[in-house]
């Protein structure tokens, strides 16, 4: 990609798990060799079931976790090597919006203090008064009232809190935001508000997103490209329309056919979901293709060789069904 703002290069994030002192050290393979790029002003969607490592990947990208192997490049720089002022600049430009609007705001701070904090940390604007003005401005951007400034987070509804959280990240004029399931804890009518708000500020402030979700429907709407993740690996990457119209990997197909659609007639005609069992433990990833234990089309080769991502049409897919 020509103007990639973010490049994830063969990243593995493992967590050591000790079952007992004498047992061999085990690793929870949360992210297992993932590579992709996100372009400027692009939204890259990342979907998968809970436990597939998508949140860990998001946290690795903002450097909450360090990758066990592989590198993350932001604007061409390896973020693992950033120090001092460069790190501070990275922290200013790369932000994260969290899933749980009840846990992501400090309950002892007022809304004004919460939104002002990033500006205090990075010493933006000359005076406190200018920061206060910026806070009111940000509240307005996210559709809240200036007189909410002195209230505490617990007085707001989930959707309002998520907007406060967005205002906080915007205070730093970020260039790249990792949205870690920002809508999955919200009511449907509020989800649309948040998605539209994110799209609006993307256009106004020229931001790139990594949008993580477990609901392919929501991701399709906001993303230009989507990656489907299963047990720590990307199984398919494609243009969002193409991935939706013409999914290649059996897992992507299953995810798509499970989305409930608000149309009773469509739902009545829909066949039962062709996906059995549940996601295996990331402590014990199946050999070969991780999805083979649930795949309706599994073949003997799937147990032996781990499929690599290969280009099929405009998409990339990791599946032996498409072996050349």
């Amino acid at each position, binding site marked *: 990609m020509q103007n990639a703002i973010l490049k994830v290069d063969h990243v593995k994030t493992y967590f050591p798990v000790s079952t007992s002192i004498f047992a061999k050290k085990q690793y929870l393979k949360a992210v297992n060799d993932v590579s992709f790029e996100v372009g400027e002003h692009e939204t890259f969607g990342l979907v998968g*079931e*809970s436990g597939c490592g998508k949140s860990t990947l998001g946290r690795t990208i903002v450097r909450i976790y360090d990758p066990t192997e592989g590198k993350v490049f932001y604007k061409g720089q390896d973020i693992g090597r950033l120090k001092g002022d460069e790190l501070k600049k990275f922290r200013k430009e790369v932000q994260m919006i969290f899933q749980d609007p009840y846990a992501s705001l400090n309950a002892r701070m007022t809304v004004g203090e919460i939104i002002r904090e990033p500006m205090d940390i990075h010493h933006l604007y000359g005076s406190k008064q200018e920061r206060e003005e910026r806070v009111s401005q940000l509240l307005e951007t996210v*559709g809240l009232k200036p007189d909410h400034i002195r209230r505490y987070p617990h007085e707001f*509804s*989930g*959707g*309002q809190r998520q907007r406060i959280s967005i205002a906080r990240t915007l205070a730093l004029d970020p260039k790249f935001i990792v949205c870690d399931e920002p809508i999955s804890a919200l*009511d*449907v*009518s*509020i*989800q*649309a*508000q948040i*998605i*539209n708000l994110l799209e609006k500020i993307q256009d106004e402030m020229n931001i790139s997103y990594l949008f993580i979700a*477990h*609901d*392919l*429907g*929501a991701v*399709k*709407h906001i993303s230009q490209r989507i990656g489907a993740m299963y047990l720590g690996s990307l199984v398919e990457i494609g243009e969002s329309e193409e991935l*939706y119209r013409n999914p290649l990997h059996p897992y992507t197909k*299953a*995810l798509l*056919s*499970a*989305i*409930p*659609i*608000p*149309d*009773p*007639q*469509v*739902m009545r005609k*829909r066949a*039962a*979901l062709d*996906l059995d069992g*549940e*996601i295996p433990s990331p402590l014990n990833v199946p050999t070969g293709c991780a999805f083979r234990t649930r795949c309706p089309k599994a073949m003997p080769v799937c147990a032996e060789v781990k499929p690599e991502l290969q280009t099929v049409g405009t998409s990339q897919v990791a599946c032996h069904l498409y072996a050349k």
Partner: protein
Amino acid sequence: MSLLEINNLVTSFKTEQGKVQAVRGISFSVEAGEIVGVVGESGSGKSQSMYSLMGLLSDNGVIEDGSMIFDGHEISPAKFEGTQTEWEKYMEDIRGNTISMIFQDPMSFLNPVLNIEKQLCEPLIYHKNIKDKAELHKMAVELLTQVGIPSPEERLKQYPHQLSGGMRQRVIIAIALACHPKMIIADEPTTALDVTIQAKILELIKKQRDRLGAGVILITHDLGVVASTCDRVNIMYGGKIVETGTADEIFYNGMHPYTQGLLSCVNNPEAEDHKLRPIPGSPPDLLAPPAGCPFVDRCEHAMKVCKLYPAPETRLSETHKVNCWLTEKGKI
């Protein structure tokens, strides 16, 4: 006569800040063998109305008005024939027996220190008075098989933390089915689950409804879930039911602006070039709910009358009713 009839139920909570009017006069009925959806945002009163029905309100909650007739018996505490203790005893006999409940968070419902078999057998021992160990075990195995849990013999010995979220929810459903209930109340049964698991659980609920012929109330905020399961739908907003009808009436002919708003802000990836049109603002604060229509502050068609008076009920068909002033607009 309907299996369940709720009439003008009013429930409120006393808090330090004042009285929260959670449920403000709702009426609906459930027939045997049908799935009725109750759709609303958090804080719309949908869960609290069910807790009122089950006699499970927290200490500061009180049912102020209304009647609830289940299976021919009045079960609202104020109108129950008998003393408070007799009512409590009666509700205890009903709960988990003729009405059972499926909760959103299976982990908080299951007891972490009891194995699955003990928890499955509990309602059988308590309500059906079955003491024989071998018989109990056989029934437990059968229940797990019914909800599609593979190798039930081993699962019975396990503890809740050893099961995945989807498995736990299946166990909850098995417990709910144990006494062959006449009615099942499912409170956001799939909200905490992945879409692939959600589809399976919803299929399971439908299948069990067919098998037992029980009435089901499905509480959810997701219209997609409703479309795939419900026969009839009640749309709740700000403690009131604003529209009710069959699934087709609601989805293809929804009249209330809130219903329409919900439909247009839901991701329908099937639709060509679907533009999300969110409902602006936030749900009303039920400490001081609006005097008129609860949706007035977020409604794009709001009129002066909406702010002043609650909207009258308009009957559009035998099953389809809506509370909205727009239906009166042409008549003046």
